[in-house]
């Protein structure tokens, strides 16, 4: 294999090709629709960032040999915990957020503990939690507020020291400048007339980038990353050379729950409300992003960059079809077809890399 070929043949190759293809497609199809204007980019950027946040958690967990179907329910659960605590019970928002993270991570640990202790497939254990968490979320919000949506978080979050980390926007000055030199538009009416149409980069995107960078470095550049690969590749072999496999797996379940809670908190802070139905089917979307990104469903192989690209493809296709004016129900058809094609391509690439038969 030449150096050139070697640098090319990597787990995320399929996702890279996919990304190029998808962008070329939409550059042709949806050129004039504003999809690639600054605002349009921000739009699919935010959607992709959302997918990326949960995909990163699912990716490391999948490489460690497990997966988590309770991600979607966890998103609804964490959001409702924050809203209940801050709005209904009047605790400060920063406290509500910390408690939500603590509970979510503890549930992730419980997930992991059950998988390790009972030796059951994570499919079953986390499927049980998919139902339990969603049930608790609906029950909790109805029992306390007689509603499944709890609003008013924005008001109580104003001036909170942590809330900004999830709902804020940064680099605003940059967009003011860009608007001044005419590169992006300004609002022309309403109370915000004169301000640039893009207020700043939402913290959601920052979180996505930070999590991707963190997970990528963790996975590829640290000792712990090697343990993640080893735990998923062959848990027994890893144990024999002293890798603390159980700890690695439980930590990855916790990380997956952490990512789900980041997702939930950003959403609650941005929109000011939590609803019991948030995150429905997001577990599948996370798994799909990861698998499109070249990871192996059975563990031991994959790439965070690939998963992030998978999320990008997911986001761009979803929003791009809207821009292109395609009937939205066809999105699912596209998604299924992309998934199948990506997996077949990835299998081929993986065999080339690993000599698997």
């Amino acid at each position, binding site marked *: 294999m030449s150096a050139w070929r070697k640098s090319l043949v990597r787990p995320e190759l399929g996702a890279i090709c996919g990304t190029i293809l998808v962008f070329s497609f939409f550059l042709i199809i949806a050129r004039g629709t504003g999809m690639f204007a600054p605002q349009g980019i921000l739009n699919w950027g935010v959607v992709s960032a959302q997918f990326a946040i949960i995909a990163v958690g699912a990716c490391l967990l999948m490489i460690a040999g497990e997966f988590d179907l309770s991600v979607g329910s966890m998103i609804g659960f964490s959001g409702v915990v924050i809203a209940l605590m801050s709005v209904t019970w009047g605790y400060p928002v920063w406290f509500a957020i910390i408690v939500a993270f603590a509970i979510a991570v503890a549930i992730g640990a419980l997930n992991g503990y059950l998988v390790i202790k009972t030796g059951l497939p994570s499919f079953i254990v986390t499927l049980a939690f998919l139902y339990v968490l969603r049930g608790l979320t609906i029950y909790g919000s109805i029992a306390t507020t007689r509603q499944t949506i709890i609003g008013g*978080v924005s008001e109580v979050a104003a001036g909170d020291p942590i809330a900004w980390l999830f709902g804020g926007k940064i680099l605003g000055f940059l967009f003011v400048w860009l608007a001044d030199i005419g590169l992006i538009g300004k609002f022309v009416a*309403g109370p915000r*007339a004169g301000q640039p149409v893009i207020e700043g980069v939402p913290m959601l995107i920052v979180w996505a980038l930070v999590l991707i960078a963190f997970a990528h470095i963790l996975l590829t550049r640290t000792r712990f990353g090697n343990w993640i690969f080893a735990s998923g590749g062959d848990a027994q072999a890893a144990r024999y050379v002293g890798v603390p496999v159980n700890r690695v797996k439980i930590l990855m379940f916790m990380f997956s729950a952490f990512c789900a809670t980041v997702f939930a908190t950003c959403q609650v802070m941005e929109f000011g409300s939590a609803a*019991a139905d948030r995150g429905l089917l997001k577990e599948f979307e996370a798994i799909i992003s990861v698998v499109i990104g070249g990871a192996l469903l059975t563990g031991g192989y994959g790439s965070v960059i690939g998963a992030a690209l998978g999320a990008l493809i997911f986001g761009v296709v979803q929003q791009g079809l809207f821009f292109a004016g395609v009937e939205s*129900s066809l999105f699912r058809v596209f998604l299924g077809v992309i998934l199948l094609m990506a997996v077949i391509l990835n299998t081929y690439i993986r065999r080339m890399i690993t000599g698997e038969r």
Partner: protein
Amino acid sequence: EGERFVLVSHAPDSDSWWNTIKNAINVAGEQMGVTVEYRNPPTGDLADMARIIEQAAASSPDGIISTIADFDVLSGPLGNAVAMGIPVITINSGTEEQSKEIGALMHVGQPEKAAGFGAGEKAKAAGVTKFLCVNHYITNPASVERCQGYAEALGVELGNQMIDAGQDPAEIKSKVMAYLQTNPDTNGILTLGPTSAEPTIAALNENGQAGTIHFGTFDISSEIAAAIKSDVVAFAIDQQPFLQGYLPVVILTNLARYGVVPGNSINSGPGFVTKDNIELVEKHAGQYR
């Protein structure tokens, strides 16, 4: 000529009620010579809906028509669209006040709670004291509000009278029968749309209580129309979705072309469909009604 508008709903792909609105925007689009795109979050996730509004604004249309399914979630993106100079009309769920706060031109529709309240008032007049609200979409806030409004009009606690029925017709039917069997003193039923109304009608037919319970529903379908005619269903609350789709397109077109716009919000409903006016409704049920 050839203006482009985007209508964003909160309904999942599979929600049948919105077809009337889709038909309405087609009719209006043809009549006015404009294109109207219909967009919705595929799973009904309101956060996704916010993204779609942002995306619609980014494609700089000549106007946006949107629901206010959740003011908290949608006020931001809709406000931004207004600030970008895009005319916005809000429809369906949400209140006039919320619409004003966003800066929209007007609101065409009826608030959910008030609609539920209206249904409750009718029920109260018919002597309902204990009721069952069949909620097939428990995770959707608007549907909970309908039940809540109904309960308030009756002056009773909602409590366990709202059931999480799920979307599967056989399960809805069985749950309704189970509920009625264990709460035989129930004398009122509210269903929130065809998905829950049709299995409930089947349940009443099967357990022989058809016509003995005061039964109100939201929205209209051919099955519901037939049930109204046979006295099983007392009334269907029709917020006349056709108007919610049709009027905003016409208004936005006129605004774009001639700069004229009505000064006030429009109440498209509630229209109560009863045995008296069912004939006309039935002809267009599911299409224009």
